[in-house]
């Protein structure tokens, strides 16, 4: 079952004819995604753009294994995932995917450091000293080492988003998904968060998919996928002359 169909060692995610319908089997049935084919490789920084209602978030939920596709198949690290049960999907989310959401979504009851450690705690309970060191170094990476013991409510929105990024990276996931990570931030903060994605992508070599509706930020990514009405209408590599370093190979 876990045999990769296409033995490309760099492939992290592959979507084949993915469809997603809501209210299946009722008069209100509506298809939001109409057969998506997409492939993401390690080290790629991809922007997913599209107007509101084009199905970006739905696609991200499907890719993030939060919602199973209605048809088609999604291969994560070469393994088909459509038919796996909730328990397995949950485990895959924890082990293979890092999430960054628009509204930061930190858990306010926990300190910044505990928030970063949360995916590891969920996985196996009390984090080891090495894991705590890793979390601290990730906080350092996002420039928030000094805020480790603060509560999320005590730091700014941009800082919260960077904590969320550190949290998404703590499990060293091969796939990092970000849903409008800058949508809630002012331009300058947005730019710095985006630069952080670049750095992470270069440093950790994970596949990064960022949903954004800011064309300037999208242009900063190596690749832009455009979604309109539940279909991919363009998928292009941006010129590295846009002032960005290309993803490392």
């Amino acid at each position, binding site marked *: 079952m876990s045999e990769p169909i296409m033995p490309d060692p760099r492939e992290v995610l592959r979507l084949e004819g993915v469809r997603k319908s809501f209210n299946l089997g009722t008069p209100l049935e509506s298809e939001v995604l109409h057969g998506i084919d997409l492939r993401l490789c390690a080290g790629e920084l991809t922007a997913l753009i599209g107007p509101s209602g084009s199905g970006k978030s739905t696609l991200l939920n499907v890719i993030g294994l*939060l919602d199973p596709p209605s048809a088609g198949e999604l291969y994560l690290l070469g393994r088909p995932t459509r038919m796996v049960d909730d328990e397995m999907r949950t485990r895959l989310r924890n082990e293979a995917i890092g999430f960054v959401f628009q509204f930061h979504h930190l858990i306010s009851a926990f300190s910044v450091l505990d928030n970063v450690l949360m995916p590891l705690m969920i996985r196996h309970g*009390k984090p080891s000293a090495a894991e705590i060191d890793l979390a601290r170094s990730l906080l350092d990476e996002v420039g928030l080492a000094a805020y480790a013991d603060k509560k999320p409510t005590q730091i700014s929105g941009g800082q919260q988003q960077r904590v969320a990024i550190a949290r998404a990276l703590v499990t060293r996931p091969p796939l990092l998904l970000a849903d409008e990570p800058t949508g809630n931030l002012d331009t300058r903060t947005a730019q710095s968060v985006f630069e952080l994605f670049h750095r992470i992508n270069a440093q950790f070599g994970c596949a990064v998919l960022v949903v954004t509706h800011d064309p300037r930020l999208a242009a900063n990514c190596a690749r832009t996928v455009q979604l309109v009405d539940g279909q991919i209408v363009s998928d292009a590599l941006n010129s590295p002359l846009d002032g960005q370093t290309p993803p490392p190979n």
Partner: protein
Amino acid sequence: MRLLDSLWTEWKIALRFLLDNRLQTLLIVFGIAVGSAVIVFITALITGLQANVIERTLGTQSHIRILPPDEANRVLPAADGALTLLLESPRAQRLRSISNWQDVRDVLDQDAQVLAVSPVISGPALARRGVARASVALVGIDPQRYQRIIPLAEELVAGELRVGAGDAVIGTELARDLGLGVGDKLRLDAGEGREAVVDIAGIFELGVRELDERYVYLDLKQAQTLLDLPGGVTVIDTTVAQIFEADRIARRLARLTGLRTESWMDTNGQLLNALSSQSMTTEMIRVFVGISVAFGIASVLAVSVVQRTREIGILRAMGSPRQQILRVFLIQGGLLGLLGSACGGGVGWGLVQVFNLLGPRLFYIPVDPTLVPLAMLVATVTGVLAAALPARRAAHYDPAVAIRYV
């Protein structure tokens, strides 16, 4: 080990969630504490009261009395085909000895369920002093054995427990009626010319008017002579370890000895009835307080689950399994129950102490040392059970929907 490690996370999240919402937690803990305090106090009070009543009742009587069988008319069987018309008048029950009572005593001494055995001879007599007369019950005892049934020596208000050789011990009421004190003489008349003059060696007060007014304790020999039953005893008094098994044990002893038995439960039917109604009332109060505590916990957690929808969504998105979310809320329920009942148990215990110190001092309430821990255990389990519904709901949130909840 893996489960324990994983539970660490559930504990941490549950504790943080409770601490994060301090006011809500405090309010429900207070509510649970009040409920637990009521349960602990009322349980201790009623248990204490009942133990006290039973102790007082059984302090002056044996648990099982073994008596000779009643005398009955024997009707000759009619010849075949004959019609018998029978007019029967019940027989008067004269004072009779238990036959072979020494053997019966020895058998009872060996019985594992019987604690103490005391053969007694008792019958009616008149007590006279000068012109004053009082009807009394002569009770011939073996003091050593009888002490283990009713601790008479502890109830003495004057003199000593000495019943042999012309000595007798009487109750305070009788002493007052006849104007007797220790060392005075009392004439006992058991009828048919059997009389004796005894010295008052001691005066007891059992606190039961009937006994204090009528009982005259003698030794077996004097009483046997007065009652004209040489070497006989009319009753064997026994006590048992499990007092509420007394009626069952009494039936067994009746089969064992072939004699008539009477347990304290037979002779105190009304008391038992009152006690069991009281127990039922207490039980109902406990159940209803318990239910309202459970509903309190459930409703607070139901609110908390809604408040935390988005956080539950985040946890699920980060790979927290449904079971983990379920456990987080079950632990919260258990913790609330434990915390509330610990406070409430302490308060209830304190109330009992205050009652003992400052109350009407009718009786002392001992607190069973297991009561508070037991209440805490029950409250914790109740908390977990009450949390089940909200926890299930939390565990079944769709993460994709929950995460967008505002």
